[in-house]
């Protein structure tokens, strides 16, 4: 599974890292550290990643590949 973090729309709600701390890492400001990047979701973390994605009030995380 691959997801992309929207660089403009992440505003540091931190919901993604709360539900999937092994997938989404926050920087020192509390924003997604991978803004504008695609990231590979480690095996076994797919459900957490989806939960984090769906909880993002900005819809800043999109699914690139299942």
């Amino acid at each position, binding site marked *: 599974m691959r997801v992309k973090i929207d660089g403009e729309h992440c505003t540091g709600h931190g919901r993604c890292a709360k539900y999937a701390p092994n997938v989404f890492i926050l920087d020192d400001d509390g924003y997604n550290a991978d803004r504008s990047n695609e990231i590979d979701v480690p095996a076994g973390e797919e459900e957490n990643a989806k939960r984090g994605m769906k909880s993002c*009030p*900005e819809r800043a995380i999109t699914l690139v590949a299942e």
Partner: protein
Amino acid sequence: MNETRADMEADPEVAPEVLKARFGRDIARDFDLDDPMFNDRFDEVLTFMVNKCPISYSKAGTGYHLVNTNEQVRRVAQDWRTFSSAKGYMPNRPEGLPYLMPEESDPPMHTNWRHKLNPHMSPKVIATYEDVIRKDCNVLIDTFIEKGECEFISEFGALLPGWAFFKNVLGVPIDDLAMLVEGVEQGTFALPAEERPAHMARVFTYLDTHLRWRATQPKRGDVIDTILEGVIYDDGTEAPWDHKVSILVDLTFGGIATTTFVMSSAIHYLAMHPEVRQQLIDDPSLIENAIEEFSRVFPPVIALGRTCTRDVEVAGTEMKEGDFVMLTWGAASRDPRAMEEPEKIDIKRETILHSTFGVGPHRCIGSNLARLELTATIEEWLRRIPEFSVREGTAPVYVTGFLRSMRELQLVWPK
């Protein structure tokens, strides 16, 4: 469900005379955030608006649009170029109220300040306040636990957020908290609205004096020093003093005027629902999710405004350059288009999508602190006072405008 203005106009349930009969006014075309009816029938009105009125209109003062669905609220909130914050977030802003930075500014000015302030409010930094906040919960509970009763707002809910903010973030004594809470509350809800600036002026004066004093003191490396250090705007000018004071006012406003409502509403809900209380006592790992659900359904900030910088269409409604538009966070968080059974309060909800901390670049800078205060409160309260209820014959007292606040909550428990 209606998706556009045209759907709404064609819906017999949204006909003006039907709304007048049901709500006492045409809430689709003549809504008013300050109407006492909205305060009394809060949940019913928000649910109706999000389902039936993707866009509603208020004739209060110079008038404003309200955007009510999850998707459209997000679109407008993220599009800061078209929907500017620089003319303020209050509808019919009273004369003489200075703008609050960075909330009432747009990028790049807004971005300059957020980059400076964000590190002070990040999850990592906020986590270091946990012990102090937890201890304060217990200090407050100690003052009333043996009485077997308390008035939750004045004895806990209005105090803890102020203590947490003053002690950890601002580093100022808590002695003046009551005066500031009063200033901020009156500055928000006082009617007629023309009285509000005078109340806010007291808050400005106090914080201006504090900032001036701190400028003469050795540096502490805290948020106040960061504000004093200032930023250089893109045009090369230094942020002026009044911007610095207004940042302190904005942070204080957010720090003391909002979290109290989620906290009080959560405690009220738990007083009324012993079975949910028991679930949280049996499995404290549910508390985190419960707090998100409580934040979703008990929003302290109902709606904040933007000003259109050009003509634009939203959900089939033409908006003109200069029009004022409110983003109804409270309605967007209960949108059946974006979540299942939004009217149901379910602490075990799998995914919780809400707009209580706003959407877009102006996302509440204190959201991490608010969540910590709520966690500490619910955990410590349930540990110390596992059984409690609302005093018989009483009910919470609310006040609502663009913010919602609880004024009174009488609780009792076995001594």
